[in-house]
């Protein structure tokens, strides 16, 4: 049995030489990465840069992918997908409780729904929810399992801009209350800067930039000090703002 203090300092996710390839094309090329327990990390990259592949590897969802390397991830991992992925034939509460059992589960499910602002919608069908509400329900479903690691694969990518801003606040708030380690995959530089304490850029199958964002929360999208981070991240992504 490891002592409790060691549990706290132990990294939540640890990758050593993680390699993944599809049809001979190397997508992840020997990635070394440690995410400390409780850290909010964002992973940026172009589409096709392999950021989803990395997330799926950590989630254990890459069954038929060739690859090598060492991967350590916690026991309790939750995943939020780009689509809410609610089962249309289960009511919202039953969707949140998917994969849980026990007597307290229902109470926890209600609590999680209240936390994401969906109290009173327990008996609704997923088809009756708006896109933002459905994604909130998906967040509640991931919370109910009290994850040590929360993996989010462009969770706000399908939402409109206003809903997205509201969801940013909610996600950060939930993180502060529960403190799971978070790996947020996104292609939105602003989203990464506003939400995460550490931003990684995946480029050519490797971590091209590992940037710690040391600014207090809640952060404003117009904070001028964040502009510097934005420029560094955009440069790492190979985007130059010519118009400036």
């Amino acid at each position: 049995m490891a002592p409790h203090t060691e549990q706290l300092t132990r990294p939540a996710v640890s990758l050593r030489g993680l390699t993944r390839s599809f049809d001979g094309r190397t997508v992840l090329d020997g990635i070394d990465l440690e995410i400390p327990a409780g850290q909010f990390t964002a992973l940026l990259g172009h589409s096709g840069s392999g950021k989803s592949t990395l997330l799926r590897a950590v989630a254990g969802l890459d069954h038929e992918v060739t690859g090598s390397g060492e991967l350590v991830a916690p026991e309790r991992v939750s995943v939020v997908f780009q689509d809410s992925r609610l089962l249309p034939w289960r009511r919202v509460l039953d969707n949140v409780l998917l994969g849980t059992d026990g007597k307290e589960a229902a109470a926890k499910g209600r609590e999680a729904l209240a936390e994401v602002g969906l109290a009173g919608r327990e008996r609704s069908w997923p088809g009756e929810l708006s896109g933002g509400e459905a994604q909130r329900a998906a967040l509640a479903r991931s919370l109910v399992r009290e994850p040590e690691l929360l993996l989010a694969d462009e969770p706000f990518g399908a939402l409109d801009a206003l809903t997205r801003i509201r969801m940013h606040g909610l996600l950060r708030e939930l993180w502060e209350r529960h403190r799971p380690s978070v790996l947020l995959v996104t292609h939105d530089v602003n989203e990464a800067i506003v939400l995460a304490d550490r931003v990684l850029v995946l480029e050519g199958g490797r971590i091209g930039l590992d940037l710690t964002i040391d600014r207090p929360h809640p952060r404003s999208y117009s904070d001028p000090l964040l502009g510097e981070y934005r420029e560094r991240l955009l440069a790492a992504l190979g985007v130059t703002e010519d118009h400036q």
Partner: protein
Amino acid sequence: MTTTTTTAATAPVLAPVTAPAARRRRRSLAPGRRLPASRLVGPALLLAVWAAASAAGRLDPGAVPAPWTVLRTGVHLWTDGTLTTDILTSLQRAGAGFAIGLTAGVVLALVSGLSRVGEALIDGSVQLNRAIPTLGLIPLFILWLGIGETFKIAIIAIVVYIPIYLNTHAALSGIDHRFVELAEVQGLSRLAFVRQIVIPGALPGFFVGLRLGVTGSWLGLVVLEQINATSGLGYLMFQAQNYGQSDVILVGLLVYGVFGLVSDSAVRIVERRVLSWRRTLSN
């Protein structure tokens, strides 16, 4: 608080006056609200035309007897017990065949839809079976099983299991891969995955198969009872044909029709209950 309520209350009143063009609704493409008892309107009209034509003497009573003649014959056959015995015999045949076909269809679809080995063993064979018209198997089944009840039930079971298998299997293999991934992420056991995702996901397809199967069981019954039977509704009608009793034939047809209508409605009601989460054009 009060200001918001007042503006909310007055706005809809003012809007048509200030901007009437903007409030014009688009024409709805959905069929609209259902007529009350809509499924009975057509049959009732048909019955009325039949009765009117009979009363006016426009129909040959030997070929198409009047509705009241058919009714009187029906009551007569019912009270002397012939009809009840025949109905019970027919119901037993259809019920037994349907139950066996339903079970076989669902079990085979599950085995073939959930395992690759099962699919390899079952799917090809069923597709082959489907290619042979089931009623064409009657001579062979009489040779194998004799001319008793067994062969009739076997034929009905085959007629029923094929549509149920095909539709359930198609629905099972069509389950969204994203839901499979979700089940993995949520740590569902194989049993929980089947119960909570596979079966509910395949239910819409299963119900399509079920309705086809119900219709099929009556179709099989009619054919079997008219070819080779010494009891049952079909036999009653076959005898009536020999004696030129068109009213008895019509009573038989009426009973078949009621069977079909009642069973189809029962499936519809169950389907609507079970699939209440679906919001389609029909509601």
